[in-house]
């Protein structure tokens, strides 16, 4: 028994990355970042507003949170929709109560189905991100290019109409990308994406249609990841976010600006037994107010980009 010789050939063994999307760069070897108002820590709170169809096609792969039971999986369908009916309003109230700003990453189909909700979110003056057409639209290599382009442009069209300002940022459903997604995002006029979770600061991301910025939105600190995948309690979830905030703040004081990027889902954290723990995190963050720059992601992407991360 043996394998083809290609298994012992290392075609992309070279200095730097094994692809050309972004330059190899260690965070601590870059010039320190200074955020506006000399705040050591930037805070980005992003709320995902999502639609999970009852009849998923699961092209490419099935994104987490999709239906798992035989059709019709009413329990998962309705539990996800809970977020758009109830959970999101608890989050809005918590943001207001603690004086915090968030962005909203919205599926195109949510905007189409629930324009009221998007108008309500737009009243807060927050930034919108395009979050793909729906949560069954994972972008994957091998899929039809026209379909992928349509998912992007349709989302931008319907969301852009309701948002009141051009959409600049993208978060793929389940942070999915095909080999050509970055080109399609740039072609559609987007400035940045949040899918690559390999850094604590933004960096330049190369596409054949001009550079994007990648602004990493932590997966490890996400409610769905900690509570849904890891099955940690809501109290543990809050502890972990508070530990992360304190750690990054201490590091930022010594080594330059850092970013705390918190991604939350109304269908997860908006449940009545969990929302109080999100409020505990918000209370902690409010307590750090003088040291935190709570900004929109486009502002953070602009202020945090280091020239040494320019694409290769």
């Amino acid at each position, binding site marked *: *028994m*043996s*394998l*083809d010789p*290609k*298994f*012992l050939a*290392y075609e*992309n*063994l*070279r*200095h*730097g*990355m*094994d*692809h050309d999307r972004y330059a*190899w*760069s*260690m*965070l*601590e*070897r870059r010039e320190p970042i200074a955020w506006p108002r000399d705040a050591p820590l930037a805070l980005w709170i992003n709320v995902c507003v999502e639609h999970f169809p009852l009849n998923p096609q699961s092209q*490419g*792969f099935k994104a987490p949170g999709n239906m798992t039971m035989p059709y019709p999986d009413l329990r998962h369908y309705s539990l996800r929709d809970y977020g758009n009916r109830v959970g999101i309003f608890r989050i809005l109230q918590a943001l207001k109560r603690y004086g915090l700003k968030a962005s909203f990453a919205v599926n195109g189909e949510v905007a189409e189905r629930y324009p009221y909700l998007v108008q309500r979110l737009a009243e807060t003056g927050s930034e919108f991100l395009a979050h793909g057409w729906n949560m069954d639209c994972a972008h*994957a*290599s*091998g899929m039809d290019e026209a379909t992928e382009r349509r998912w992007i442009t349709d989302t931008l069209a319907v969301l852009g109409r309701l948002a009141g300002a051009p959409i600049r940022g993208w978060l*793929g459903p*389940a*942070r*999915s*990308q*095909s*080999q050509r997604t970055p080109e399609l995002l740039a072609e559609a006029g987007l400035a940045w994406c949040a*899918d*690559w*979770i*390999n*850094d*604590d600061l933004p960096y330049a991301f190369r596409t054949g249609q001009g550079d994007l910025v990648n602004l*990493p939105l932590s*997966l*490890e*600190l996400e409610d769905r990841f900690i509570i849904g*995948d*890891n*099955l*940690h309690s809501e109290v*543990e979830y809050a*502890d*972990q*976010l508070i*530990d*992360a*905030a*304190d*750690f*990054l703040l201490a*590091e930022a004081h010594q080594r330059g600006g850092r970013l*705390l990027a918190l991604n939350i889902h109304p269908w997860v954290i908006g449940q009545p037994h969990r929302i109080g723990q999100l409020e505990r995190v918000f209370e902690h963050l409010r307590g750090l107010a003088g040291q935190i720059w709570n900004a929109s992601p486009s502002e953070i992407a602009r202020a945090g980009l280091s020239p040494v991360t320019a694409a290769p």
Partner: protein
Amino acid sequence: MKSDPGLYGYLPWDRRPEIRWPDGARVAVWVAPNIEFYELDPPVNPQRKPWPRPVPDVTGYATRDYGNRVGHLRMMRVLDQFGIRGSVSLSTAMLTHHPEIIDLVLERDWELFSHGIYNTRYTYGLSEDQEREMIADAMQRISDYSGQHCDGYLAPALSHSEHTIDLFAEAGGTYTCDLFHDDQPTPVITRSGKRFVSVPYSLELNDTIVYVVNKIEPRRYGEMICRAFDRLYAEGERSGTVLCLPLHAYQVGHPHRLAAFQRALDYVCSHHGVWLATGREIARHYLDHHYDDAVATIRRIEEEAA
């Protein structure tokens, strides 16, 4: 296929010759940062897929890349604080992709041992000649870059063949981290009959196993380390034990995890009688002072059983 790997004889915990660590230490503590490279689009091994999602698996790849861009330096600063030298389980492709990280390792006088070429190239399906070539290639890369002889092996992504440990011993290795059968070093039987040992590399306290497989909370991982240490320290009064902490900068190096880990190290290092060692030093000490006694004891126990 065999029903028993045949790599070690039975040596019960209550019938062992005493192990004495240098300076009367009770516990040898070694920390093994895995410094790894995962390829975005490797050739797909017939027995194991590298990524669950279609290429590019953005979250899988970027999660690992976080360790290289952000985590290693953060983790090194914590280990520096306690004077801990890491024993690096190295994807040797890192010597080419990201030598800047390896230079930081060598400045600190850490040990490098082999973890294969890439952590996305599995041993499954390689012929014996192919595996021999891969093992020798990785050892050569370490010595070319660092001048260190590669003494230890942890197979890439813990993927093995029936010959893996034989081949590494024949290539001049001294110890393996691939066996999880003990809290002390033990002799390992290889076909060449070379003096070769297993150094405990705890899978149960490996941060990836802890956080990802067993889904343990960050603060609880710290508590687990302290509890494991307490027991090994108490038992080490009679005969020296080993506590290994295998780490990944892309796991423990996250901002919600590192402080809890640091508190655990602080607890461990506040004790007298802790030998902060490297894998190579533990293997060497055991080979020089305890290996022959252990082999003789195992033989006696086997004779009694017969």
